[in-house]
């Protein structure tokens, strides 16, 4: 294996993120207002438009997980009366809050001036902000995003969201910012969003090549970073994705496989589609269980939680509120279960996968409830091997490396045996 | 003044305390413990009460109140029943007046409770449906190791290099333990390792109820000096300033003692009520 080289895009992303945290650290001095909000259905363009700074508690939890802090945080939350059973993102956040709310840069994060509850695809979000509301006693504005129960977005649904945006969300944000939304600017932002979205889709779809130049899960979680967080609709994001596009094009031209922490993967033995979020506390170890066996993830649903673009949706500058509504309702976690099955089936076929694997996380009912049916249906429809492992997002108690490795090994052997037969 | 009996029916043993209580003094006149060992529980209860009364030099009809606790609500001739945490708290307070919390580790359950100076339970936490880390668990392990229960504590205390063992099934422990023996790990190190993992859970329970001050170990495993040392260490590790662990030779009787004391309390109340009604009529 060749040694890993830091790609330019990676550096770029790092810079963007630290610049954002620097802004947050200075928010109070700079007199900027801070809004806490969630990844799925986030209204980044609106917040940027008004000069508001977003904080995404899920990202904090995830990063605390990667830095090995969540064990303690969860402990603190459980001590404060939270049940062992509930979503650990919430507990990691509560624990972090109770430990001084220190962010990944080592500086405390500013308190929210507003909680923007754009509730897409997960009921726990409601509870999460109810809890934060009681900690911070700041206003909450609620955007109810209806669920695509019947597998489509209807006009009344769209109208409901757009109405809420116009009549409740935007006025609340404007009041906080002390200025009005600049709709010309908003259209400009949405145009930039769509540009970045184009490149992101190209990058994710590059995995259709053999060998795939990317790992669409372990690498993918880095690729979605900017667009899922605070940078959608900025030139920064556009440039990042251009850079990334170029780099992946280069790998394709060179016939290279994906980058892993131990350098370029030499032999693509298994092409896998993955459903479900990764584990963050043992992310590297988890990843190694894949590339160590020559497995490459060619498509994943997790990289669609903050926006699903590969079915053609792009932010549309000509109808700003409606397009934001469609974006919110279109995130992966807001899809009905039958539709999730359709999407995964399509991935398995389009990406010529050898099999698919579900990482079921204990925390997330939104993802996990029904995954076993998804497994059965996909096996039936595609005839390919399905695997099922269980872990958690950020609770180190629920990552049993030996157990998962055992299952993955058996699973890859199963894929191998099945392939040998057909 | 009241003479009362407290009967604590556990899943491993029956405990009986006979007490003599007047306004200013509570005196334990006799106590008795009998392990159930796969026998009919009611038989053991009868036997134990008889033995305790004999030791106290009393007849059954001299008792003012028979209070049960634990699974004792199946005893038809009881006067009243109090629940385990109510009685263990009161018992703990009797045995060690400065205690403000207790951990009762019995054959199947572990429970931690915090109480105020009057014995009122303020907060508690119990383990539930898994016997890992219970008294029965330890008993099983000692059997696989070929040692008697009373040897567990002293052996554990002599450990030099405790083996790390995390959540072990009380039943499958056999394999793990035999495995450790095969790997050449000494009995003390195995025992202390197990004590450490049990202590971790206990410390977790205690932390959950935010204890401060003196904690008394009650229940059968209070006699296990190895376990109490392990718990004390864990509490220290957890930065448990202001927390200290106590044991008492009668710790196992805490539930029965507590029941007997509450029995006297209720007896007094009932008597007053009767007086009051008599006064009216």
């Amino acid at each position, binding site marked *: 294996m060749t040694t890993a080289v830091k790609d330019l895009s990676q550096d770029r992303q790092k810079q963007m993120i630290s610049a954002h945290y620097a802004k947050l650290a200075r928010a109070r001095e700079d007199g900027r207002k801070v809004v806490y909000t969630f990844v799925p259905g986030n209204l980044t363009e609106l917040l940027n438009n008004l000069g508001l700074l977003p904080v995404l508690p899920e990202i904090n939890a995830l990063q605390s997980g990667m830095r090995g802090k969540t064990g303690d945080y969860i402990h603190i939350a459980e001590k404060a009366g939270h049940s062992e059973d509930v979503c650990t993102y919430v507990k990691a956040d509560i624990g972090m809050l109770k430990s001084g709310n220190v962010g990944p840069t080592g500086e405390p994060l500013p308190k929210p001036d507003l909680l923007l509850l754009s509730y897409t695809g997960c009921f726990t979000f409601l509870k999460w902000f109810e809890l934060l509301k009681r900690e911070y006693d700041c206003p909450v504005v609620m955007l109810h995003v209806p669920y695509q129960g019947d597998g489509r977005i209807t006009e009344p649904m769209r109208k409901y969201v757009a109405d809420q945006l116009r009549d409740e969300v935007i006025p609340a944000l404007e009041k906080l910012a002390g200025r009005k939304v600049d709709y010309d600017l908003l259209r400009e932002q949405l145009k930039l969003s769509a540009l970045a979205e184009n490149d992101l889709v190209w990058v994710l779809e590059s995995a259709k090549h053999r060998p795939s130049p990317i790992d669409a899960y372990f690498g993918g979680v880095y690729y979605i970073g900017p667009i899922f967080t605070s940078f959608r609709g900025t030139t920064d994001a556009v440039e990042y994705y251009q850079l990334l596009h170029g780099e992946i094009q280069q790998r394709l031209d060179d016939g290279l496989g994906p980058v892993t922490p131990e350098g370029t993967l030499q032999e693509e033995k298994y092409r896998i589609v993955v459903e479900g979020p990764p584990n963050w506390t043992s992310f590297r170890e988890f990843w190694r269980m894949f590339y160590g066996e020559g497995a490459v993830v060619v498509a994943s649903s997790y990289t669609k939680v903050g926006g699903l673009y590969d079915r053609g949706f792009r932010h549309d500058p000509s109808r700003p509120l409606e397009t934001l509504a469609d974006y919110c309702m279109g995130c992966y976690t807001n899809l009905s279960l039958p539709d999730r099955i359709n999407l995964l089936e399509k991935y398995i076929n389009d990406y010529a996968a050898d099999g698919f694997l579900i990482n079921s996380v204990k925390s997330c009912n939104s993802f996990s409830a029904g995954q*076993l049916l998804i*497994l*059965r249906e996909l*096996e039936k429809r595609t005839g390919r*091997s*399905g695997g*099922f492992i269980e872990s958690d997002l950020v609770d180190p108690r629920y990552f049993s490396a030996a*157990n998962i490795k*055992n*299952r993955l*090994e*058996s699973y890859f*052997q*199963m894929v191998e*045996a*099945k392939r040998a*037969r057909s | 003044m009241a003479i009362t009996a407290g009967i604590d029916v556990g*899943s491993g043993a029956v405990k009986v305390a006979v007490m003599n209580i007047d306004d200013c003094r509570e005196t334990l006149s006799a106590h008795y413990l009998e392990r159930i060992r*796969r026998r*009919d*529980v*009611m038989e053991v209860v009868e036997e134990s009460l008889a033995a305790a009364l004999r030791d106290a030099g009393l007849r059954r009809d001299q008792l003012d109140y028979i209070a049960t606790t634990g699974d004792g609500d199946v005893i038809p001739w009881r006067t009243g029943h109090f629940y385990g945490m109510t009685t263990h708290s009161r018992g703990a307070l009797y045995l060690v007046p400065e205690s403000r919390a207790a951990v009762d580790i019995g054959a*199947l359950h572990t429970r931690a409770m915090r109480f105020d100076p009057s014995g009122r339970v303020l907060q508690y936490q119990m383990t539930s*449906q*898994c*016997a890992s880390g*219970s008294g*029965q*668990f330890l008993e099983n392990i000692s*059997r*696989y*190791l*070929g*040692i*008697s229960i009373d040897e567990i504590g002293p052996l554990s205390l002599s450990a030099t290099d405790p083996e790390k063992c995390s959540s072990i*099934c*009380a*039943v*499958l422990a*056999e*394999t793990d333990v*035999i*495995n450790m*023996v*095969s790997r050449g790990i000494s009995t003390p190190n195995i025992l202390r390792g197990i004590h450490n993992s049990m202590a971790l859970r206990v410390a977790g329970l205690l932390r959950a109820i935010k204890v401060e001050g003196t904690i008394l170990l009650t229940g059968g495993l209070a006699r296990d000096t190895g376990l109490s040392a392990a718990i004390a260490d864990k509490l220290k590790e957890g930065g448990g300033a202001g927390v200290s662990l106590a044991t008492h030779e009668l710790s196992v009787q805490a539930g029965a003692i507590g029941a007997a004391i509450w029995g006297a309390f209720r007896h007094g109340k009932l008597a007053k009520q009767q007086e009051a009604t008599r006064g009216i009529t």
Partner: protein
Amino acid sequence: MDCFVGIDLGSTTTKAVIVDANGRIVGRGITNSRSNYDVAAQVARNEAFTNARFDMLGQALRHEAGIGESGAAFELALTAGYRHECFLGQLARLEDHCRRDLDSDRYTGDRRAMGHALEVIMDGIRKDAAAVYGGGAAARSDFFRDLAGASYIEHAAHVAREGGPAFDRLVGLFDRNIIPVENEQETRTFAQLLMAALDRVSDVSPAQRNAASGVLRRVAAADLREVSAVGTGYGRVRLPFPKENIRSEILCHGLGAHLLFPGTRTVLDIGGQDTKAIQVDENGVVTSFQMNDRCAAGCGRYLGYIADEMNIGLHELGPLALGARRRIKINSTCTVFAGAEFRDRLAAGQAREDIVAGLHRAIILRAMSLLARSGGIRNEFTFTGGVGRNAAAVKALAEVAQDNYGSLTINIATDSIYTGAIGAATFALRGAVQGAARN
């Protein structure tokens, strides 16, 4: 003969199977894996080779003149003699360990009494063994620990009753010293043991003996060549095998079940410490599976624990449950709590049989949940693992499966405990064939 070995290092028992170049099973070996995995694997493998030689011996004897009609009986007697020899060897080692242990400080007070008691107990065990191997009594188990243990406890109880040292103390001596014994191997060779066994066979004329000893010598000297070996099972990572010779137990079980019953589509294996539900395709390739965690509830040990609680042998549990009349739902999940619930229910006047049947049903329901998670039950349904030997468990399984998945063929093989090892041995054979083809 070329031999391909499969070793299934289970949590309770270790199994070894040998197949020949045609894939025919020629040898089986099983031992307790409670202690040392390496030793267990070695013992099981040796036993499988012994078994293979006995297999050859049986064939040879059938063709040998001079032994004649009584060949089968002779073979049986010889096998028993062989086992008896092995047993006595282990017993001698146990006694040795116990004696050394008695020199420790622990026994300063009662060393003489304990020593004397030990002598009496050992004599008793030797007598029991003679009866068992002489065909006069039924063996409770195949394993030294169980056999010697049962016998030891009986005699220890007697000694204690007669005023000897306390029962707990005597049992403690056994429990402590059985572990090293299980970690040691037989030092005598197959040929030595076989000759000793021959001396134990009483019913033969000198001529027969002569004829037989020639065959024995030949078989003992026969060249059994281990071409390759594949390891599997719970403890497989501990095996000193290269990575490509270690297979997941799921795959081995799937293949093994397929080899035993080619129509198999769903496999349920309830072993001592784990339970697996496996779906296989028409070639025996695993398509999906589920396993349980390290919790005794739901595997064989659950029943073992209950049997211990009731103070009866594991093999008596099933027949007892078959006598049930009423259906009882056991509320406790945990094995230990179930034991307590058992006593509570007995105290409440419920019938033993009914409760025990309820416990059997509980373990089957847990397995059902695992099966459901792996994709349900499809025809044919093969039930493997040690619990397959328990008739009441099989009955409960058949009922629940029938009620929920309709009419099914349920396969249970006498060899089912070897399923994983059979799969592993076949993988060894296939791997060797493929390797040869590649070179």
